[in-house]
Every structure is written in C-alpha cells, then in structure tokens.
C-alpha cells in the first residue's frame, strides 16, 4: 500500500542519501520506521525515518492564534487546516546502486520482509549475527512485526573491524541487558559456524550478570516468567512484545534455552552475592600473579606518577617479579629502614635491585603501594606471592564467564580488569588452544579508559582495542557517557550502540554519527537502541528482547 510520495521541491530537494517525503495522515510511521521509496522503473531506496514534521498551510503562530477566533481556545472553526506529515529518510540501500537522488515523486510504502532481505544481502549468510529487530508492523505481539537486523561478523568481531561500544544512562538504556543479548547471539552464531568463542562478562552492578544459569526449562515456562515479570513491573504490554521478539530470535537460531550455554562465575572472597552464583570460583591476585602493566594500572591510574617512581617500579619488578615475592615483601624492600645509604650522596640502594635511587623515591613508591593495598583488600593477597588469578586456560569455549566486580573499589576493579584483559590478550597471542575468539564485556569503560590524560591502564586498553581484531579479541565496552571515554577507544569500536541518554550528553560531537536520530536518543525506551554498524550507511533504531533470566523476578 502506498502511504506517501517523495518530495522533490525547491525547498526540499531530494539528495542521494537523504530526502523528504509526505505521508498520508493515517499511516503509522514514526522515527526509526523503515520505509521504501520506489520509482516507476523499479528503482528502490530503503530508508530509515530520521526526522518527522507535521505542518500545515497555516503560515505561523499568529495566524493560528487569530484563526482560532482571535485566540479563543474553545472555538472549533468549521474547517480544520489539513495537517501534512513529512518524514526525512536516510538511505540505507539503493537499487540500482548509484549515488543519485530520486528524480521523481517516487511512491513510498512500508518495508516488507523481502525489502529487508535486500538490506541483509550485503552480509553473506554465514556472517550474519543477529543484533536486534526492526519494528515493521503495528501489532507488537506478532513475530512478523519484527524483522531481524544482522551485523557482519567480520566487522563485529574482526578482522575487518572489531569492538562494540554501548552508551546510555544507567538503568534506562538497558546496556547490560543488550550486551547479554548480543553475547547469546554471538555464541549462537559461533556454534552454528563451529567457532570456539568464550565470553567474559564483568559484573559491575548488582545482579546484572548473576543468575545467568537460571533459565526457564522450556518456552512454556519462559512465557509464564514473562507474564509474571510484566505484571510485576506494571507493563503488561511488554509481555507480548518480548515474547514475539524471542519467537523471532529463535527462528534465527538465538535460543538461549535450547543452546543452554555454560555459565562460569568468578568472584572474590567475601562477596555477599555469592549465593546467587552456581559453583563460583574464588579469584585473588598475589604479587607474582601480576604483570608490570597490572602494577602500573593499579598504582598510577588515578594520579600521575613521577618519572623516578616509574623507573624504580620497572627496575624493582625486573628484579623481583616471578621470584616468590609478596606485596608485604615489597613494602619492606621499599621501607626507609631497609634501604642502604650510598656514601657521600643523597642516594640509596634497594636490596636485590640494580641501581641507586634518590632517597625519597622508594618511600614515595612504598606509600603508593600501601595506599593501593589498603583499597584492594578483597582481591590482593599481601602475604603470599600467588593467589588464584583468572587464567586464560580457565576459559572454555561456548561459555559465559562472569567475573564479579560489584562492590569492589575502583582500584580493585582496575587491577582485575587489567589483569584479565592482559591475560586473555597474551593467551590469545601465545597459546590459542581451544579458544578461537574471546568477547569481553566491560561496563564503566570510562573508569579504565577515561578521556583526557594518558594512564597505564588506558594505554593497555587502547593497545588492545587497536590490535583486538588481529588478536581475535572483541571488547564490548559500555558506559553512561561516551564523552568521558577516550576518543580512540570509541573511534576504534566499529559498532556503536546508544540507548536512552540525556540531551546534555548527546550534544557532544562524539555522537555526530547519529545524524538527526540524535534528537531521538532522549526518547528511546527500554529495549530500544540506536545501532550504527559499518555495513549500514545510516544508524538504525533497533529493539531487543529482555534477557530471560531477568524475568525470573517472580520466582518459578
């Protein structure tokens, strides 16, 4: 059914990549809707509605005021001015493939499945990773109202591109839920394509990634969970939408119940949430479990070190790391009382470490180490050289590995995240083994790679992000404010996703790629995201279903 026509006017000239159209008044079109413009000779342009306007022949507010019987709000004039609805389409696909605008008043209609297949055909079937759905119908309970959107595995995971960045306000943007949906989807794709993928999720907030093992027994039970969940949150309309999307996801192989991926938990000693996990492994780090970069990340991220301290740390680690030293031993070595004065100078020596040091440098480094240890009591073993670190070898393919960070201090989080990312990247580089690829999901990316001054941890993340596609390591990073994350990290994430965010954040130039959809960000609802992927020339507004374990609130 034709619902409008492309506008080719002096005021609204059609361009190759964007053009306006008018729409019939009863057509249910909104921002994010995918529409098709068709020419008389079979030309086709698939576009996303990026902006909409309602206008009329009434020139301005003065005439509108006067026209209501000189400002009488109660009057209804005998004729209602015709309201004209306009939509701006950004072109996602053009056939024939040409960079030319519509030359006539092309017909405009809703997208059908076969149109979206054209959109997907840029991605060979074996590389299609389901990343969400486009809403193409009015009835949200009908799975056919939800058309799949795919990412290209080579751009999502490498080697053509890699990394995903998710941005949005905490609680409203559903970043963690989406990261989990994406994890399922990647694992489903990997299983189908016989790729051995391990997913590592850092749990930074409450039970976001805990209880992932608690899935419904079957889809009947899933429906019951969904019913109870929708009732409990007072949004019963969500039930049909979520179930319809899961139904559709199942059709494309993303069926968490059937796939039944393993879940492994890693947490620290004394975690009060340990009861929510199934067979958790306790992790901890001793002096010898860490690498130089981990020390730098732990000691030098929040305040800039002086050069002598960095040089001393490097020399100390070269001398002591890997030889059974402990953190307590390090504190002792750096203690003023244990230093050896160099005759006739203001310099000192540290036992077992080459070189001499200005006498105030070792105590300064000692203070820094002590301050760190005071803040890292949950995860650092002070009196033993080794703890129970999470090793690359403990990763298993087609498995979700949840690393508990919730309630840890920022210093502890930095240590653990840095150590794990370093361990995995080294493992992928040197060991390979049973794992082809690792996906790391890290929220609060701004803590590890903040914008502004360089820090050791940020350098490591930038390095991994830059080399990740070669290493087969994909970082799915998330944060409230992309503007507070290093530009290089954001820039290297080929796939960008934005959920609900405040207008003050969205005006940052880092979101320029959203085009006019930027205005839509503060209006996004839960389960709705804007997705930008290299395969598509414009961002898309996508939907995804609530993860199944989240709906277990009512208990089974």
């Amino acid at each position, binding site marked *: 059914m034709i619902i409008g026509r492309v506008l080719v006017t002096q005021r609204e000239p059609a361009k190759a990549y964007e053009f306006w159209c008018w729409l019939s008044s009863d057509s249910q079109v909104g921002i994010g809707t995918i529409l098709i413009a068709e020419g008389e000779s079979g030309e086709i342009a698939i576009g996303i509605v990026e902006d909409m306007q309602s206008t009329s*022949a*009434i*020139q*301005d507010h003065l*005439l*509108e005021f*006067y*026209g*209501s*019987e*000189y400002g009488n709000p109660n*009057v*209804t*004039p*005998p*004729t*209602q*001015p*015709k309201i004209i609805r306009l939509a701006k389409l950004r072109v996602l696909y053009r056939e024939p493939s040409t960079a030319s605008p519509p030359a006539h008043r092309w017909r405009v209609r809703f997208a059908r499945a076969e149109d979206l297949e054209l959109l997907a055909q840029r991605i060979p079937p074996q590389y299609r990773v389901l990343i969400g759905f486009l809403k193409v119908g009015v009835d949200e309970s009908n799975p056919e109202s939800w058309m799949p959107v795919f990412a290209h595995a080579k751009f999502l995971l490498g080697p053509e591109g890699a990394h995903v960045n998710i941005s949005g306000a905490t609680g409203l943007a559903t970043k963690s839920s989406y990261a989990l949906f994406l994890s399922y989807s990647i694992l489903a794709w990997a299983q189908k394509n016989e790729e051995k993928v391990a997913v590592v999720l850092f749990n930074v907030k409450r039970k976001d990634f805990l209880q992932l093992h608690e899935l419904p027994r079957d889809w009947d039970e899933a429906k019951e969970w969904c019913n109870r969940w929708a009732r409990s949150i007072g949004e019963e309309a969500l039930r049909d939408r979520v179930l319809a999307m899961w139904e559709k996801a199942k059709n494309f192989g993303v069926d968490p119940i059937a796939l039944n991926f393993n879940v492994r938990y890693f947490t620290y000693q004394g975690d009060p949430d340990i009861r929510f996990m199934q067979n958790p492994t306790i992790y901890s780090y001793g002096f010898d479990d860490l690498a130089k970069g981990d020390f730098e990340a732990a000691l030098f991220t929040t305040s800039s070190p002086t050069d002598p301290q960095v040089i001393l740390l490097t020399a100390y680690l070269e001398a002591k790391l890997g030889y059974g030293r402990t953190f307590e031993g390090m504190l002792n070595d750096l203690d003023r009382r244990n230093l050896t004065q160099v005759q006739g100078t203001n310099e000192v020596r540290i036992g077992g470490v080459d070189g001499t040091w200005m006498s105030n440098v070792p105590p300064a480094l000692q203070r820094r180490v002590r301050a760190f240890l005071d803040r890292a009591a949950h995860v650092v073993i002070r009196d033993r050289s080794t703890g129970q670190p999470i090793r690359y070898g403990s990763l298993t393919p087609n498995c979700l590995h949840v690393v508990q960070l919730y309630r840890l201090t920022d210093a502890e989080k930095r240590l653990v995240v840095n150590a794990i990312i370093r361990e995995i990247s080294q493992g992928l580089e040197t060991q390979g083994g049973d794992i082809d690829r690792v996906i790391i999901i890290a929220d609060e990316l701004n803590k590890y790679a903040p914008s502004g001054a360089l820090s050791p941890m940020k350098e490591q993340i930038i390095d991994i992000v830059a080399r990740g596609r070669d290493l087969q390591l994909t970082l799915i990073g998330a944060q409230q404010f992309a503007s507070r994350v290093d530009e290089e990290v954001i820039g290297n994430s080929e796939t960008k996703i934005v959920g609900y965010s405040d207008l003050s954040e969205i005006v940052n130039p880092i979101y320029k790629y959203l085009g006019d959809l930027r205005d839509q960000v503060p209006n996004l609802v839960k389960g709705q995201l804007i997705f930008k992927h290299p395969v598509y020339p414009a961002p898309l507004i996508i939907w995804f279903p609530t993860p199944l374990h989240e709906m277990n609130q009512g208990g089974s």
Partner: protein
Amino acid sequence: MGKGFLNELKEYLRSSGVNPLPLSDIPEEVAPDLPVATSSTGAIEIMHLEVGTSPEVETIFTFFVDGVQRTVPIGEVIVKEVRVPIHIAHIIAGAMERVNKSMKPYKLRQAIVLLFPYQAMKAYGWDKDSPPLDILDSTGNIYRKAKSKEEDNPEETPIFFSDTSISLRQDQSGRNLILLGPGDLIKTGEVRRKALDRTKELLRIVELGFIWEMRQEKNDSWILLDGPIAPLLKYGRLADSDLLGLEDIANPEIAFDFLHRVIGAVKKVQIVPTAGVEAALNSANFVSPIFQFSSVVEDDDEVARWILSAYIWLRRELSREITILWSTVSGLVRFDIPIPSILDESMRSSWKTIIMDNEKALREYLSSETNRKRLEKLLQAILIERWPVPSSTITRMLTEIFPIAETELWLKANLRDVLELRNLI
C-alpha cells in the same frame, strides 16, 4: 498520463515551424491582486442585518469551487518578418468537499489550450494548416467538449485550440467578431493580451460548466465559489447548450436551478455602492449592509440586479493590526447572494416575479420575518467561515475564506509547471 494528445500537438508545432523561446523569456501573467474599490455605483440598500456570531451556528457549505490557469508563451512563428507569439494555457476548475471539518478533493476538470491568432496569420500569409485539435470557438459547448474528451480519455489532459483573432462572442446577427486582423500581428503586446484574455474567458466558461455539473450531481448542497458570480452567467451558451438562457436570466428555470445554492465570495472588491457600505465598517458588531445593484462591470468584477451584494468586514480584529493597508475597503468582502439562494424550491414562481418586477417583489419577500431569518441564517453561515485564516498575502488574509484558499492551493498544485508547458514544443 497518456501522451497521444501531447504528441499530436508537438508534431503540429514542430511541422509548423514554431521556434522555441529562449528559456529566459517565459513570462507568465500574474493577475494584480489589489482589493481596492475602483468603482462606486448607485445601488439600492435592501437592508442591513446584524449578524450574530453564535457558536451554535452550523456551516452549510459543503463544496468550494475555484478555477486556476497558467498561460505561458511557448514559442513564436515568424510570418514575413513578423514574430507572432504562440501561447499555451492550462485551465482547471475544481471543487473540494468539506467532510467532518476536513477538506478533501472532490473533482476537477481541466484543459490545455493552444492559443494563437490563426486567421490573422493566415490572412497575413502564413501557409500552415490550422492545428489538428478540437477547436474552442463561438459555436459553444466548450465545457461539454472538454468534459466529454476528458471522460473518453481519462488518462490524458484534453488539448484544444482557440483562435485568438476571432471572438468567442457573436454579434446580434450571429457573426463572429474579429479581434485581431493581419495588421495587428506586429503589435506583439496586443497579441499576447488577446491570448491572456482568451484564457480568462475560457476559465470562466470552465468554471460555469463545472458548477453546472456540480449542480446536477449535488443539487441540495451549498457551493461557495471563489469570486463574483455575475461574470460567469454571460457564458452560459458557450459553456453548455443546456445553459442557454442563463445570460441575462432569459430562462428563469435554468437560472433558478443554477443559482439556488451558490454563493460567491468576492475578496477583491472593485465595485462598492456610493453610500451605505460604511455601516459594515463602523458598527461594533458584524453588520452586513445588503445592496441590489444594477448591472455593473468593472475589470474582473461584476454585479447584477438578480444577485444581492452583502458586504462584511470579515476579520476586523486582524484589520486593526495590519496598519500598512491604505484602502478603506481592504478588509471588506462582498458575498454575492443570488436571489434564488434565499428562495426555496416552492418559490420558483416568486423568482419569476422578482425578475419581472425586481425591487418591489424582493422587498415584499424580505418583509416576511421568516424570509428575513432565512437570509440572516445564510449570512451567519457565511460569517463563521471567517476562521481559520489562510496563509497568504496580507490583503488576502483579511478577505479570503480558508476552504477556498485550500481549494486554490490544490488546484494550483495540479497546474503544469511553466517549464513543463514550455517543453511541449
């Protein structure tokens, strides 16, 4: 859209040696739009009514009729060193219907007309045949021809030829009047003016025929027409032989059928009575003085004695805020109310009496409270159309009725672009 008629026209223009005009030389006549009284005429003030603006008043108008045209010189023929312009006119008359307060296109009729002074050119030595197109001339039935051609070929806009050297009117003995002779061809401005005049006449004919067609389809519906009614009536015979006798109300039956539910809204008032109209301007309330003129013609405006003229200061609130207007009557609108519009079907005989003994019978009729109320209700129904205000020039904002502006917008959007018409050659 089919291309048959157009190809025929193109082939003719090509074979007749019509040279295209340079792109920079495609003037389009735009009618001046100055609502300034240019003629004051003695008139009988029938009454003046205070028109209430009660919110309970309901609209009565369902259809809004307008006509638009675009006339473009598309080429020239050189006849013995004399350059003769060739024009193309696109003429449309149409109606929008108001349904649940929303305007919807109802119907339009259109024609493309090739215009040039063929007989004068021939007499001057041009040796080409006349165009192989149906001709619109003084033999009449112009609307009927346009309608039947459109109905026979609904995919194509009907194309006609009209010779601007010969008048559409005939003298009393039935002979055609010559408008341009061979010697006039050198006067290019005059040749152009005749083409524009012909378009104007044809537009009135098409409007007249269109209203008549509407009358057949929607006999009980009220029609609000853009512009005066009187100028149309003299084209009855030329529009459709069924309307023979509309001129000068020679056939009262036809005139009654035609006029009984049509009101004309004249936003460009050129004719005002010598006295009495100030009542519409001075009163705090909406007072409409109603006049009966003798027949007066002034440029595009015309009044007639069987059409009452009600003057209303339509948007006085707005007028006070627009200080740049300098004419007293800039905000004044004249509504042409044909006498049959205030008579019901049972009063056909009264209509004939009023025609015979105009003023006295009319006064008698209006002296009845019921009939006076009937007129008052009609004026109230007109007055509620003053909102909303259409977007237009300042003067039109004061005087144009919104649904008519919408109708004009719709019809104009159907007019072929200047360059599109130009490309016919």
